[in-house]
């Protein structure tokens, strides 16, 4: 088991290295750089050259990358030229916001998705099943920016139950903090639950046709016990994978929702650093998201082992 964990953690290194190199390359391919952004309407060729020299942007790209990597290896992620903030400061300030958003969103999606999936699987092909899968399909095609505005209009402007925008730190006011996450998390959950529901539904339908379920029925076990104990666990392998991948995606992919609800999360930091070509911050954020993604996959793998002993013992 320990070897399994260690092996998995070792995978982290090459992934992070590749991700950081790719980000560096792609960001350098963008037209314009930080010098142009800082100089704005004063970006004459000679001023740009001078400022680029000051910031080291005139060095060859591989040299800059190695320099950055060298600093990272000794724990120095750098400091933005533009804001003077260190990367650690910028990321740690915002990470908790995105983390909370993504957890609540995924939780919301599971709360909506799992019961519906079970209900549909039991009555596969019924009118109820067709209605739910149809709804899921249409929810899937509603973009977040639309559902967000509709939710704001309804719950914040008309009913005034929840705030339209804003953020309160959990440490300051736990209830207020949760209140301001309800709408953003719901917005994301509305786009997430259909995927989870459909995956679990089809796996569950397959499981319910297994012999041991028939056996359980024959033994006269309660239907709810069969569904929740005997059928759900083996059916949820794909669900766990999809949930893991979705969480990873949500970590960096909440840019739109964070902008609409004015949440100070990592998605907005990422977007801002791309607009301003703030490569140091960009690298920091991408590394953080990539590390989170890899760690989540690792956790998913661990969960497999819990759900399916065959994997734990290496007989898969």
């Amino acid at each position, binding site marked *: 088991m320990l070897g399994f964990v260690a092996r998995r953690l070792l995978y982290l290194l090459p992934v992070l290295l590749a991700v950081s190199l790719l980000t560096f390359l792609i960001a350098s391919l*963008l*037209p*314009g*750089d930080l010098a*142009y*952004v*800082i*100089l*704005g*309407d*004063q*970006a*004459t*060729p000679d*001023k*740009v050259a*001078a*400022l680029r020299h*000051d910031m080291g942007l005139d060095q060859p790209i591989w040299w800059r990358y190695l320099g950055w990597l060298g600093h990272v290896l000794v724990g120095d992620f750098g*400091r933005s*030229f*533009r*804001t*003077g*903030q260190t990367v650690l400061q*910028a990321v740690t*300030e*915002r990470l908790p916001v995105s983390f909370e958003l993504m957890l609540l969103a995924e939780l919301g999606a599971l709360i909506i998705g799992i019961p519906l999936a079970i209900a549909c699987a039991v009555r596969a092909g019924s009118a109820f099943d067709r209605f739910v899968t149809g709804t899921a399909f249409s929810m899937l095609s509603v973009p977040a920016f639309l559902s*967000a*505005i509709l939710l*704001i*209009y309804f719950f*914040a*402007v008309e009913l*005034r139950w929840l*705030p*339209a*925008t*804003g*953020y309160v*730190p959990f440490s300051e006011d736990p209830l207020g903090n949760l209140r301001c996450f309800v709408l953003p998390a719901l917005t994301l959950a509305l786009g997430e639950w259909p995927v989870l529901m459909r995956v679990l539904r089809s796996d569950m339908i397959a499981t319910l046709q297994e012999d041991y379920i028939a056996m359980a029925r024959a033994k006269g076990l309660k239907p709810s016990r069969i569904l929740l104990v005997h059928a759900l666990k083996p059916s949820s392998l794909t669900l766990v994978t999809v949930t893991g991948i979705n969480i990873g995606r949500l970590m960096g992919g909440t840019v739109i929702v964070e*902008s*609409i*609800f*004015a*949440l*100070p*999360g990592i998605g*907005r*930091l990422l977007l*801002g650093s791309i*607009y*301003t*070509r703030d490569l140091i911050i960009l690298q920091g954020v991408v590394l953080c998201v990539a590390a989170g993604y890899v760690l989540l996959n690792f956790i998913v793998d661990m969960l497999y082992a819990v759900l399916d002993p065959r994997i734990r013992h290496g007989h898969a």
Partner: protein
Amino acid sequence: MTATTRMRRLAPIFLVAAFASMAGAAQAQKSGGSITVGQELDIPGFDPLKIGVFDTSAETAAAAIFDTLTYLDDKGEPQPKLAVSWTHSDDYKTWTYKLREGVKFQDGTPFNAQAVKENFDRQKDPANKCRCAFYIAFIHDVEATDDLTLVYHLNDPQVNLPALAAAPTSNNVVQSPTAWKTKGDDYNRNPVGTGPYILKSWTAGDRMVLEKNPDYWNKGHPYLDRIILKPLPDAQSRFASLQSGEADIVWDDEYDPDNIQKAQKDPKLTVHSYTGSGAQVYAFNTKTPPFDDVRVRQALVMAIDRKKMSQAITNGLAKPASNPYGEGSWVKCKDDGALPYDLDKAKALIKDYGKPVEFKMVVTATPRGRTIGQVFQQFWKQAGANMEIEQIDQATVVPRAFMRQFQLIPWRIIDLADPDPQMFANFHTGSPVALANYSNPELDHLLEHARVTADVAQRTEDYCAASRLINKEAIWFWTFQNTYYAISTARLKGLPKIHSGVIDVSNVWLE
């Protein structure tokens, strides 16, 4: 405005009644309370060496944290703030300010002439390579002749220096020299000024909390106990936050016409708008065909139906511009020489040119840039010209302009208190942003004359003649004036004009 009144205000003045005039009209101001301001952008910081120049969101914060030497009253006239009076030499190349006594920065550092000079020198120093240095290029140096006397020596004459000193820009606000020296890299996000509010806390991307400065030199001010500034990047949710009460005043612009028009009908909300000087403008590169021929340029300008365009992109809110000065400017022309919208004439001119008119226009790769490009494309197609839209990233528009790698490019004349800095830069032969690559001794002469003349009537005549010449030659054209919007709860009072789109809440109160 007549020549004599203008002369009078530019003559040496000693305004003792500064406090009374700053208090504004005789409305009942109430102290206490707090407001939340919803802004468009995240503020990157306040150190000019780090960020170059402030954007409008940063200027809103700067107007509360810092002070400037002067401020503009409702008529656009400069009034005393950190400076109590000013005089100038006959050639307008030397300006002497007397500074307010007994003012202290929020960290206890005394405010004096030396502090202002250090702010200037730091930005001017070529070793610091500050973008902000460009806007003070016309000032040769600043001298502190005694503790409260400041002498500006200018390279070029400037008759409106006190008015230009009023905007809360990175050049004009006075920051504490002790603070930036002791805080180093961290100063950018921990600014210290003499202003009515002190920065209490700032969570990047979320909120900046400003608390009333109890030791503010202007006794009885400010009114509010607290101002919270929040970036609300999305226009729809920004307006929703105002409606639901999470924000008390929000920034807006004419590209969000639905909400502005909705707010105008709502008795609980107040729409503040101000049409400043300047305009949204476009420059032809007259060194590249087909724009080396004046007929083509004129034809394209005459094919633009600004009313229809305003309707299409801003629901009619955008105000057409016929010259580069705008309603907010003191330059009012009886005849600015604007070419009329005349599609038939445009067709005839292009026919007269004889060759096919095909070219590329640079637009920013944003939904707004694309829409504007498509509207032009339709207008010009009707006149018989084929325009291809070239979308480029915002950051690369400027370098393309400087290197003259364009045929037609968007630009902006911003809302300044005097037309000289931008008119001279945009149209005088040899200037790096004289984007049209156009040279005309007559135009040069008008611009040179206007900058050294104090008489307003005379200057107005010069600038109107320049407008007639530019319009006739069609080297640049203007579509819409700079109109700025803010929407607030009707309880918020005392908001000054939104110069340059800066919502200055440093002196507002709640009813």
